[in-house]
């Protein structure tokens, strides 16, 4: 059996490693257009901040690929897939045949057509190379403008501030982290940012980037012109669906996959940021671009590719971010009135002194989303509750009062607590935790 994987990051690598574990004999080829071995994309902002060095970016030891007999084709782009011939064509014209193919091509930053976006000193952040270029520029720069108040925008803003720059965040929506937080939590985040010296403009956009060859100023929608010698654009990510589209696979926002992560083309699977798989909180397919979902989808795809039918239970869109030392976690449906008409959803929230905030969102009395600010340590228990989709009428009250633990909801979360009690249930099936 010959497996070919396009994309050697979270989804591709977890698939490759799982395939090797399941089948010591199969052939595995990983094609990556990046000229670097497996590294952590999520650490690129920490790299810019100077908190993470070369060595800690890499997630596997040298020699890892060889020890597991993974054939890594680095620095080459897959330009097309021929599903009839069952082969992948690379940019140097060579062909790689496959029995099973995984598309783990991730995403690409959206590039809004702001005049002047091609100038020197204007970046997006997706790859380690981007991070190297940004930190090079940051060495001599003083003032940065981050276009976009989403997760990546906020991470870059924090990193540039750590690197010693003055930072302005310009967000088009009415609040920062608009996908992840609601108004109250976003207001807490904004206050923190401003107290720590960030300039924040919401309901605003950059309309032009000015300078000769290099960026010198940016012009804002409201007419203001601010100095900037470094601009990072973080306006979201588009799934890299080109290959899939060209070979006839069904594509929505991402590549549409079934519960076995199979695409509509035989023997082709998809996983990670490029895949549109089932979302448990919304109850419909969605692209959930996050590391956890990419690794577990890679594992599930590997099982199916190896001929072990395995269902992907779905993911819950979620994120965690630290704003000026205060942790924020959000999961599932957090703003039903903005994202939908809000019908059938109930939102309950609790605010305490300091930066403490908590919210749960229910649909049909079942929890489908939550926000934690300030204290986040039991967020995972709530995620388990969302994933279990079980009704527990005391749950909202106890979560908001911070009066709960896993023991409170053990009956609806899983049997593990009992399995670890002596004399508890015997012969409990091995509990699969995968599928996050």
């Amino acid at each position, binding site marked *: 059996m010959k497996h070919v994987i396009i994309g050697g990051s979270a989804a591709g690598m977890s698939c490759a490693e799982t395939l090797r574990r399941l089948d010591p004999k199969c052939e595995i080829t990983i094609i990556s257009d990046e000229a670097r071995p497996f590294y952590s994309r999520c650490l690129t902002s920490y790299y810019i901040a100077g908190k993470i060095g070369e060595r800690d970016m890499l997630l596997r030891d040298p020699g890892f690929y060889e020890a597991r007999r993974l054939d890594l084709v680095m620095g080459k782009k897959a330009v097309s897939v021929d599903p009839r011939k069952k082969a992948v064509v690379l940019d140097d014209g060579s062909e790689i045949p496959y029995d099973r193919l995984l598309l783990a091509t991730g995403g690409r930053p959206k590039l809004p057509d702001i005049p002047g976006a091609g100038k020197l000193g204007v970046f997006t952040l997706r790859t380690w190379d981007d991070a190297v270029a940004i930190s090079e520029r940051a060495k001599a720069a003083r003032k940065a403008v981050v276009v976009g108040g989403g997760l990546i925008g906020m991470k870059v803003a924090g990193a540039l501030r750590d690197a010693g720059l003055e930072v302005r965040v310009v967000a088009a929506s009415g609040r920062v982290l608009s996908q992840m937080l609601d108004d109250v939590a976003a207001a807490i985040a904004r206050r923190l940012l401003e107290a720590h010296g960030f300039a924040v403009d919401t309901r605003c956009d950059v309309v032009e980037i000015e300078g000769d060859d290099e960026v010198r100023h940016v012009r804002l929608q409201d007419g203001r012109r601010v100095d900037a010698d470094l601009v990072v654009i973080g306006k979201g990510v588009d799934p890299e669906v080109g290959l899939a589209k060209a070979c006839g696979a069904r594509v929505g926002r991402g590549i549409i996959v079934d519960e076995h992560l199979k695409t509509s083309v035989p023997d082709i699977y998809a996983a990670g940021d490029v895949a549109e798989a089932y979302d448990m909180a919304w109850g419909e397919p969605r692209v959930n671009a996050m590391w956890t979902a990419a690794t577990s989808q890679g594992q599930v795809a590997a099982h199916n590719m190896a001929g072990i039918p395995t269902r992907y239970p779905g993911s819950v869109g979620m994120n965690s971010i*630290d704003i000026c030392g205060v942790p924020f976690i959000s999961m599932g449906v957090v703003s039903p009135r903005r994202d939908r008409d809000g019908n059938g959803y109930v939102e309950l929230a609790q605010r305490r002194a300091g930066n403490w905030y908590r919210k749960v969102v229910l649909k049909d009395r079942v929890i489908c989303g939550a926000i934690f600010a300030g204290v986040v340590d039991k967020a995972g228990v709530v995620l388990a509750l969302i994933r279990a989709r079980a009704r527990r009428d005391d749950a909202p009250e106890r979560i908001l009062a911070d009066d709960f633990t896993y023991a409170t909801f053990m009956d609806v979360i899983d049997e593990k607590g009992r399995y670890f009690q002596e004399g508890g249930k015997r012969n409990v099936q091995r509990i699969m935790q995968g599928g996050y």
Partner: protein
Amino acid sequence: MKEVFVRLARCVGCRQCEISCALVHSESRDIHQAVWERPLPRQRVRVTREGSEYYPLRCFHCEDAPCIGACITGAMHLDEDVGTVACDTTRCVGCWMCVMVCPYGSIRIHEGQKVALKCDRCPDEDEPACVRGCPTRALLVKERALVV
């Protein structure tokens, strides 16, 4: 593989396991000195009460552990020799992805150092400190295979 099991009926909620855990993870490992350490030594097992029962909650060292799949640095990893899920705090950046996905709330945040703290099942001890500290033997170490 060895595992820590709980006999719930025996737990009286005395929190000796918490104290033993904090102590074994302190600098001095001496209770009289440990109380003066800053930051205070933290326990990784937590005793909670639910109705009339006490639950000593700790990391289950899951197979297919979600915290490992979520970790963006590789700090959270499987220690293959002993079958535990361990956190290399020197690599941890405090992103709390692991906290977000642990279904059991087993990961604590070290506010001072901004790293993830969890049960390491006391790799340097003969017996985990919580088990040793438990006066009612509510916690005990057993071969996993014997119970399942």
